[in-house]
């Protein structure tokens, strides 16, 4: 049984309440930091832990914290990014629903480390039930003296507020989130300045994902050095993985980083294999924005080794042949799924969610959606594949925020790894129109797919 740090007590009845969470060792990390540690020592423990941002980018959290500007007389803010909207990713909703106090405790630890006295949890607006759950948890923590003025007699004051979004994927990008929190459209800001210098209300701000903030609790409880021993190399600790698609047991799993991908997909402890006795065709391993990989490449690295659930192993070979751990959104496709149709679906998503600020993204995402729909519906020509390739290249790297890259990468990877499936749609327009996606030749993970 793998070690769990965040979901240890997930099955305990009432773990969503303060009382039960406390009985299971909750808020001990808050007591420890407020009574025995300085903010600098907390930052140092997080640095030692090797924790990397769990929202997708994987940037070292302790280093991000250490960039925070600390001018005299200017408030500092911690903002929790709970705007979970990446297709394939649903771990934060799960954590907030079942163990809300894990996030609240992490917010107190992190806010103390950063010297923040007002912190916000920006939750996507559609998660109204989770917003109410968090508000209740905050009220409980405040009633017990873990929030508000002079927490536990330490002299430290903190208020936490929950802010609902309005339904916009782009607000998961940290500067768009800050714009939204200021009551504006979610248009990303040009960086620099980074939020650590000029964030919320132009004040120094750290924006961290739900899982990153919750992870500070076991880091403080164990100590940074002990936490760093879990996992493998530069991928330390545990990670929540959202598993969906054509698998036997979809759901949220906590894994120790370093687990072989094959074990994650096929073992009964995790996904339980491919549903309905089908064979695996492809996997998107880190949320919809990361490149799709055919079955054999997700199981083996470009060098032929077993691919591991780590930042490094999943990115092995670079973006052209590899993928990313990203947000841990693991989408599995069985042999009956149509890659072209799925790519069109994702392209529609990114077109819909583009904020429209940058021309390459605003125009290019719509263009990709139209061309993909044309091919998928049996009206494409061979030149459309080259056109798609050309358009995605002109989006990547040419936008203020990474949404452009997120829109371009799935298209590039689909063409790179499944070009003959695009050609099949073009050469078999009648079958395409009747939606008979009869390509099963990628389905056997034991056979080489890309030479």
């Amino acid at each position, binding site marked *: 049984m793998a070690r769990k740090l965040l979901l240890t007590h997930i099955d305990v009845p009432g773990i969503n309440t303060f009382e039960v969470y406390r009985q299971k060792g909750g808020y001990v990390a808050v007591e420890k930091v407020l009574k025995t540690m300085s903010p600098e020592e907390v930052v140092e423990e997080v640095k030692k832990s090797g924790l990397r941002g769990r929202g997708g980018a994987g940037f070292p959290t302790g280093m991000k914290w250490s960039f925070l500007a600390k001018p005299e007389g200017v*408030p500092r803010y911690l903002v929790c990014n709970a705007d*979970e*909207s*990446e*297709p*394939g*990713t*649903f771990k*934060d*909703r799960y954590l907030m629903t079942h163990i809300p106090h894990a996030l609240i405790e992490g917010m107190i630890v992190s806010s103390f480390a950063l010297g923040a006295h*007002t912190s*916000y949890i920006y939750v*996507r*607006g*559609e*998660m*109204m*039930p989770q917003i109410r759950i968090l508000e209740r948890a905050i009220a409980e923590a405040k009633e017990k003296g873990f929030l508000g003025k002079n927490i536990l007699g330490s002299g430290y004051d903190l208020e936490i*507020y929950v*802010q*609902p*979004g*309005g*339904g*916009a*994927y782009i607000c998961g990008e940290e500067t768009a989130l800050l714009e*939204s*929190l*200021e*009551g*504006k*459209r*979610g248009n990303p800001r040009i960086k620099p300045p980074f939020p650590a210098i000029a964030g919320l*209300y132009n004040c120094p701000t750290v924006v961290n994902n739900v899982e990153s903030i919750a992870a500070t609790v076991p880091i403080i409880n164990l100590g940074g050095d002990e936490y760093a021993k879990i996992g493998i190399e530069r991928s330390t600790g545990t990670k929540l993985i*959202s*598993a*969906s*698609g*054509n698998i036997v047991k*979809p*759901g*949220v799993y906590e894994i120790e980083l370093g687990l072989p991908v094959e074990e994650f997909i096929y073992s009964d402890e995790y996904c339980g294999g491919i549903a309905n006795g089908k064979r695996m065709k492809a996997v998107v391993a880190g949320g*919809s924005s990361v490149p799709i990989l055919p079955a054999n490449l997700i199981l083996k690295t470009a060098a032929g080794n077993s691919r591991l659930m780590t930042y490094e192993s999943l990115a092995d070979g670079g973006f052209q042949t590899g993928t990313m751990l990203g947000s841990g*959104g693991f*989408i599995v*496709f069985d042999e009956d*799924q149509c890659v072209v149709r*799925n790519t069109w*679906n*994702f392209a529609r*998503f990114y077109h*819909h*969610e583009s*904020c429209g600020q940058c021309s390459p993204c605003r125009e290019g995402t719509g263009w990709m959606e139209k061309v993909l729909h044309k091919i998928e519906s049996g009206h494409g020509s061979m030149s459309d594949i080259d056109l798609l390739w050309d358009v995605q290249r002109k989006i990547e790297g040419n936008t203020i925020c990474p949404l452009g890259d997120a829109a371009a990468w799935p298209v590039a990877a689909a063409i790179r790894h499944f070009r003959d499936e695009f050609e099949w749609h073009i050469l078999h327009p009648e079958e395409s129109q009747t939606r008979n996606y009869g390509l099963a030749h990628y389905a056997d993970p034991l056979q080489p797919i890309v030479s």
Partner: protein
Amino acid sequence: MLSVKQHNVNVTFSPELLAKFGEVVSRYPEGKQKSGLLPILHLVQAEYGWVSADAMDKVAAYLNILPIEVYEVATFYTMFLLQPKGKYVLEICRTGPCCLVGAERIMKHLEQKLGVKEGEVTSDGLFSWRGVECLAACGFGPVLQIGPEYTFYEHLTEDKVDELIDNLKAKTE
């Protein structure tokens, strides 16, 4: 292009609603009351079912900002309904992972069951439905949600959809 003035109705905010506005604004530093715009628009929509131009004007006056600042926010975010919809707006996730497990089939069934196309309102004024982008519940798909509580319904089948709609109808009779 949708005009926010295209559909309109006059509103008067109740003292209870204004008290909720006040609680929202208290969360932010002095002078940063505009941060309350999204939470307040949610409160307005929960109260009236949608957000009218008059309501937006009054929110602007309350927050001491320009009406255009409210319009540009309300039109940017997909959750705010700028015209009247059915009493129950069924929003079904149509993004990749849900489609892998049958969301499109459920959308087709919803259209047949309700007898209206996406975005339209049933003749009894009870239901509207629309496809929405990823609802972050991919492992439990297909899923749909119903505001203003945004109650979730997971692992949808045609039978579950029928039962849900029949229950909502019975509730309003």
